[in-house]
């Protein structure tokens, strides 16, 4: 077995000055163990307030910690905050912090850092996800270990947000000029050594780290010395690097997963409870999808199970709900009763009612974003839809362009082309995503009614779990019955990991948070 991956760092070939690459890595002690994790892309920022990508969040998880943490089922519990109290009116949350939490620069983490983080999220350059913090009106430091957060109105998604990476706690010793770009001081299991943009992020183990609440065995610091998160865009290159031992963990090419499993040289791990939802979503401002029958026809004509079996071979699951597994309110049985089982005859009937038939197919365009083999999935769906008389052209684009174009489609009721539909994807830790998508004006200016708005507001203002569940389920039922948000499958992107045999203890927490604290590196 190749063991180059465990070669002491001092014996590794050093960068040649002659080629002047910005790849030099600060050295660590001889014999130190490093783990290399390769991903297809780089982060956007080290600042948790300046990016929203999964790639960025997964790195923040290593550098920062959160007040609360999710258990494996996605329920928030204590972490940096060992306890909290909620006032009777549900507007004041008083958190008590654990003692002895240390920032990477050696300063103590206390209530002032919590206040610094939240104030910063609402500051002059607010967080990109500031509304997800909730209607916070004040943050007060009671004493170094006690902090009180006051809300303007009750907010059901507040506690789950405090367990999500977007609420990562930032130490107030960070320097504004460099924070997020070249520096990042947190309290997480690893501290930043260097970020070579586009190439790699080098993190060293934080010896002071204490795990207060993450669902893992190790209560102390990680058990190896250095974590290198490297960008390797080409899937086949990542696989080759895994096989030679240059890389320990990476997303493999989908088409090779079966062969990798069969060869047994690498372990394939699949994330669960990711919160990722892939669904049909429609332009409802003009024909044909302003008519519920057209939306339902697409839903009935889609055999999602067959499609994901072909493309993902058991790596993904059919998802009936508009919110994915792991998210509060997800219940397959509940959602299925309002879902659309594959029924091409029913789809044909609905289309016939609308005047469409073999000589007059319903013509539309399906938007799909790049990656995750979705283009192949789209072709299968295209063929399924064609069988019932829906002629759907496919347009593939990046996710940012798709988000913008879906919104523009909805805002163009007088366009002379048929309305489009899209294979939309979202990942979130709470059913509050439904509010952000569908409460007017909505993320896409899509389907909206006063009735739905009122129901969504109740999912926000209700904080007692059982009562909130009922409100969430009412919204799910409404969205599904109106064929507004038709769940297809979960997960959908960056959820498969190939792991070398010498890596033991690698875990993937809920909402796709890779965790390295239990990892040990053997000699293979």
């Amino acid at each position, binding site marked *: 077995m190749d063991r180059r991956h465990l070669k002491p760092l001092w014996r590794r*070939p050093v*960068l040649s000055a*002659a080629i002047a690459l910005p790849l030099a890595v600060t050295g660590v002690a001889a014999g130190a163990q490093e783990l290399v994790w390769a991903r297809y892309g780089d982060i956007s920022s080290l600042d948790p307030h300046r990016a929203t990508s999964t790639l960025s969040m997964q790195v923040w998880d290593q550098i920062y910690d959160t007040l609360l943490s999710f258990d494996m089922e996605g329920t928030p519990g204590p972490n940096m905050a060992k306890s909290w109290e909620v006032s009777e009116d549900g507007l004041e949350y008083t958190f008590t912090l654990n003692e002895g939490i240390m920032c990477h620069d050696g300063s103590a983490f206390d209530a002032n850092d919590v206040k610094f983080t939240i104030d910063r999220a609402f500051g002059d350059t607010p967080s990109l996800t500031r509304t997800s913090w909730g209607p916070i009106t004040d943050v007060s430091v009671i004493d170094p270990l006690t902090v009180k957060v006051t809300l303007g109105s009750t907010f059901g998604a507040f506690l789950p947000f405090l367990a999500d990476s977007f609420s990562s706690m930032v130490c107030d010793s960070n320097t504004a000029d460099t924070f997020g770009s070249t520096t990042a001081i947190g309290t997480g299991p690893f501290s930043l050594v260097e970020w070579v943009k586009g190439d790699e992020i080098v993190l060293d183990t934080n010896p002071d780290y204490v795990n207060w609440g993450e669902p893992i065995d190790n209560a102390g610091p990680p058990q190896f010395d250095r974590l290198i998160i490297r960008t390797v*865009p080409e899937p086949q290159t990542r696989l080759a690097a895994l096989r030679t031992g240059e890389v320990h963990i990476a997303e493999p090419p989908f088409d090779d997963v079966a062969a990798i499993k069969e060869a047994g040289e690498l372990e394939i791990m699949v994330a669960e409870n990711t919160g990722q939802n892939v669904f049909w979503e429609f332009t409802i401002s003009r024909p044909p999808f302003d008519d519920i029958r057209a939306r339902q026809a697409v839903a009935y004509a889609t055999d999602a199970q067959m499609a994901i079996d072909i493309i993902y071979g058991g790596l993904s699951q059919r998802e009936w709900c508009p919110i994915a597994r792991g998210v509060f309110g997800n219940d397959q049985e509940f959602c299925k009763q309002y879902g659309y089982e594959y029924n091409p005859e029913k789809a044909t009937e609905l289309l016939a009612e609308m005047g469409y038939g073999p000589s007059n197919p319903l013509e539309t365009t399906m938007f799909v974003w790049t990656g995750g083999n979705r283009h192949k999935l789209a072709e299968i769906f295209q063929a399924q839809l064609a069988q019932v008389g829906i002629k759907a052209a496919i347009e593939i684009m990046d996710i*940012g362009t798709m988000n913008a174009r879906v919104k523009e489609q909805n805002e163009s009721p007088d366009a002379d082309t048929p309305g489009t539909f899209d294979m939309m994807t979202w990942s979130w830790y709470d059913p509050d995503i439904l509010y*952000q998508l569908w409460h007017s004006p909505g993320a896409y200016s899509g389907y909206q009614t006063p009735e739905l708005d009122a129901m969504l507001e109740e999912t926000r203002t209700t904080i007692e779990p059982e009562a909130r569940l009922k409100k969430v389920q009412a919204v799910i039922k409404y969205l599904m019955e109106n064929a507004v948000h038709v769940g297809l499958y979960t997960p959908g992107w960056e959820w498969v990991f190939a792991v070398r045999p010498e890596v033991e203890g690698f875990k993937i927490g809920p909402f796709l948070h890779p965790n390295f604290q239990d990892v040990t590196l053997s000699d293979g």
Partner: protein
Amino acid sequence: MGKFIVQRFLAALVTIWIATIAVTILIHLVPGDPVRIMYGSFQTTPEELEAIRVRLGLDQPIWRQYIMYIGRLLQGDLGNSIVGDQPVLDILLTRFPATLSLTLASLAIAVVVGMSLGFLAAYKRGTWVDVSSMVLAIVGVSMPHFWLGLLLLFLFALQLQWLPVAGGDWRSLILPAMTLGLANAAVLARLTRSAMIDIFDQDFVRTARAKGLPKSIVLYRHALRSGLVPVVSMLGLQFAYLMGGAIVVENVFAWNGVGRLAIEAVFARDYPLIQGFILFFATIVALASVVIDVAYAFLDPRIRYS
């Protein structure tokens, strides 16, 4: 000679000027609202988007946007990237050395392998050496960089384990340089062969042989020097091909140059960075062409008088 250099330099400036127009129009050719595409987080308000539109000058008529762009350009300002909000020029200059080292290494491989193969094929014209060299050249020309890169990677990194798969140390340069260089060596081989066959048939070569000069002197001092003039003229074009090929090859081998940066910028919808890359690329290629043309003129005095 001075006039020739000035002419070539002015031609390069025209090329760069056309590129500035292209990059200004680029942002308006993309379907959808560019501001929403670049900055449209689902929690961004319409007011914030409008403020960004004003800040970027995208609320202005396109001719005014162009004048503003040229004004900034003359001060060396290519704008700031969307991702990370950093000066585009700084980002490009940080990553350009990696691309330059890859391009130069590839060029060296292309020149050595391509010219040797071409010369050998011409010298052994009509033999199995000629035929097999040219078959190899056709395969090299036809094979996409992407595919050749993966084949080399599987052979040298995965099977033989002689070289690393991806970035990290200087040895990582070898495979991407081979990928780029071998594909371009094929072009040079065909060109060298044609040029050398012409030269071998020239009277001065025959005369040199007739007056009793050793074969090696005739081949290397007389024939090769003359035959390489048209080949050298192609190097400028080859450099442009190599820079273009670097975009694909850097991605395959995780080589952290401007080619990969361009792909990252496209996927991140970072228009200022995409614009900066195109202009930077055009400038480098145009200036490299000037250098090659001038060198060519020095090699062949007929060029500057024509």
